[in-house]
């Protein structure tokens, strides 16, 4: 009985580690990186740098939200660059070449992104095709479509409203709008992932597909909706990035795929385990973005950025392992014969 209590206490400690301490540690690391940036650049740390980190993290978070849900349920969405490029091309071409209404263009771009997210989800959940290959191939298809839409045109210009909103030129209370939006995205994401039925379904499905099925959950529908959210998020990010960068290049999305996966992993989400928390994902995004900003200000080759990302991910993977392993070992030592019985 007391052992039971001890395990419960251990579990509570472990979950507090994930929900509270990990995000705090990551946020502190982000600040530390910015302050340490002083060593390599005179201009760091500065208010502008903080705003830049917040803005870039906002774009990253929008992508990482869906990515995180997909990874929670055991998948991976590699179609992100394709969706971003397609959504950006749609809205830019619609407004600047076809003189369409911006509002309609936005709806069109988001609708198409959502649609391809759903297609990804159907292929993965109903046909049981491996997620990363399906989404990777889908990404190639979407890049082809973007090429078709912008065919013959040189990177169409972005609609003005989007530029004002997302390039940081528009300000609210003296702070760039994207930097403020970071907090909005953070709160909305938290409500959806941690406080809504949708989020709970994702956790249940991620921790055990069988249990979820037995509990009468519409497993396929839930899985498809995760990919739909990821597609929608990437589409939304595409709209924001079109405003941020000023024109719709096809390479707009390529630099956001790896950071989005890295943010989720560094945030402690274990692929397909139903373990992972949004607040840790966005603070991990803050930390990774800070690292990027500091590296950029030193002027070392861009390649080092990915090297560092990879190393950070490996370290983070090991860190998710440590507390998990302790708990597992404890449970196993409790009842030595509880291992999987031989299948016959």
């Amino acid at each position: 009985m007391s052992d039971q209590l001890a395990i419960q206490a251990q579990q509570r400690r472990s979950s507090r580690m994930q929900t509270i301490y990990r995000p705090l540690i990551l946020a502190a690391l982000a600040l530390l990186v910015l302050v340490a940036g002083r060593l390599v650049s005179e201009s760091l740390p500065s208010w502008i740098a903080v705003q830049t980190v917040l803005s870039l993290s906002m774009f990253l978070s929008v992508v990482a939200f869906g990515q995180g849900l997909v990874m929670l349920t055991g998948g991976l969405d590699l179609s992100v660059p394709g969706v971003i490029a397609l959504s950006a091309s749609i809205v830019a071409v619609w407004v600047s070449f076809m003189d369409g209404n911006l509002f309609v263009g936005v709806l069109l771009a988001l609708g198409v992104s959502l649609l391809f997210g759903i297609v990804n989800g159907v292929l993965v959940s109903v046909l049981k095709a491996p997620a990363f290959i399906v989404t990777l191939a889908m990404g190639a298809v979407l890049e082809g479509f973007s090429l078709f839409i912008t065919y013959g045109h040189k990177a169409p210009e972005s609609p003005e409203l989007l530029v004002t909103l997302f390039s940081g030129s528009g300000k609210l209370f003296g702070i760039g709008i994207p930097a403020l939006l970071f907090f909005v995205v953070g709160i909305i994401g938290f409500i959806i992932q941690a406080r809504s039925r949708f989020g709970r379904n994702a956790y249940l499905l991620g921790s055990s597909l069988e249990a979820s099925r037995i509990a009468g959950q519409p497993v396929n529908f839930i899985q498809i909706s995760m990919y739909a959210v990821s597609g929608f998020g990437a589409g939304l990010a595409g709209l924001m990035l079109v405003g941020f960068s000023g024109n719709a290049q096809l390479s707009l999305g390529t630099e956001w795929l790896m950071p989005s996966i890295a943010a989720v992993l560094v945030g402690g989400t274990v692929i397909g385990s139903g373990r992972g928390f949004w607040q840790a994902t966005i603070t991990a995004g803050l930390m990774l973005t800070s690292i990027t900003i500091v590296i950029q200000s030193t002027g070392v080759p861009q390649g080092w950025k990915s090297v560092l990302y990879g190393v950070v991910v490996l370290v983070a993977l090991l860190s998710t392992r440590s507390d998990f392993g302790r708990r597992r070992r404890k449970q196993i030592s409790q009842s030595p014969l509880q291992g999987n019985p031989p299948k016959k």
Partner: protein
Amino acid sequence: MNTNPGRIRQTLTDGTGRAVFFWLILMAIWLSLQSTQGMGVDLGQIQSYLVLSLPLIVAAIGVTLVIIMGQFDLSAAGVIGIVNVIIASTLSSWNPLLVVVLMMALGGFIGLVNGLFVILGKLPAIAVTLATLIILQGLAVVILPQPSGKIPPFLVDGVRVPFVALGIIVIIIIAWMLFKRSRLGLYMFALGADPEALHLSGLPVKKIQLKIFVLAGALYGLAGVFMSASLGSGDGNAADSFLLTTFAAAAIGGTAFVGGRGSAVGTLFGALTLLAIPKVLFVIGVSDWTQKVAFGLLVLLAVVAGAFSSLRKDREQLLVAPYSTPTEGELSTATKGGNA
């Protein structure tokens, strides 16, 4: 008897048969279109097509081994890229055979690192190998920021000697036939089919997994050498496309992504099929974006068809004989043989 429809259907649902079938159709379309358009068919063209296919074939076979074992390895593109830039930037005047050995060792070492993280750290292979992929891609760009450098001429000219590429392909097929029946090969299949059973039968599961990761890594290293030879120079980003194409080749070749089923010969023809697609599209004369879309769609189709057929096969197996996987009998004789 050989021509009855059941037999044909069986050949088509078997991955290797299907890949060969697709490949033959594509080759027929390609060559006949080309000859009717008055461009003619010369052997040099087929030769260069085979040379171009070598890196993908070897890398995709490495990927296939890891999939059969029941894991995923995304680092192939990274290893190929880093091998390419290392050869181009520093090893261009070295002894070519030494280069091959060194680069395979490098690939094997990266496979070892992957394996240690996955097995000892008990971490998901997808996440670990994705991280190593990012690291290697970054390092490749750091080592060689702009496409440049030179590949040892012996390698570049060597693979272009007539019938060398074909010979290598034949060697690969023979090597697979031998490996499939070797103890490690059997364990690899058994591990993918039922890891629990293998563990319970007291086999060193971790060691087997590690060996396969190292073997796959060494194959990526070799693929990197072939890729350098066919490219003729160094380019830090040239290998990025291998992430998709290696898995696509495995999928077309009928490798089951749940593990336990697959064949290097199927993957080989999967790779050949995949690289014949652009040839056909080029002869048809479709535009740039259509090529991209068509390529992606065909990969999707192959993956989905493969997943679908293995899904059905799983159900059939469950209905007929749940645990009579073909490797089990062979496995017990193999272990006996090992003790003797």
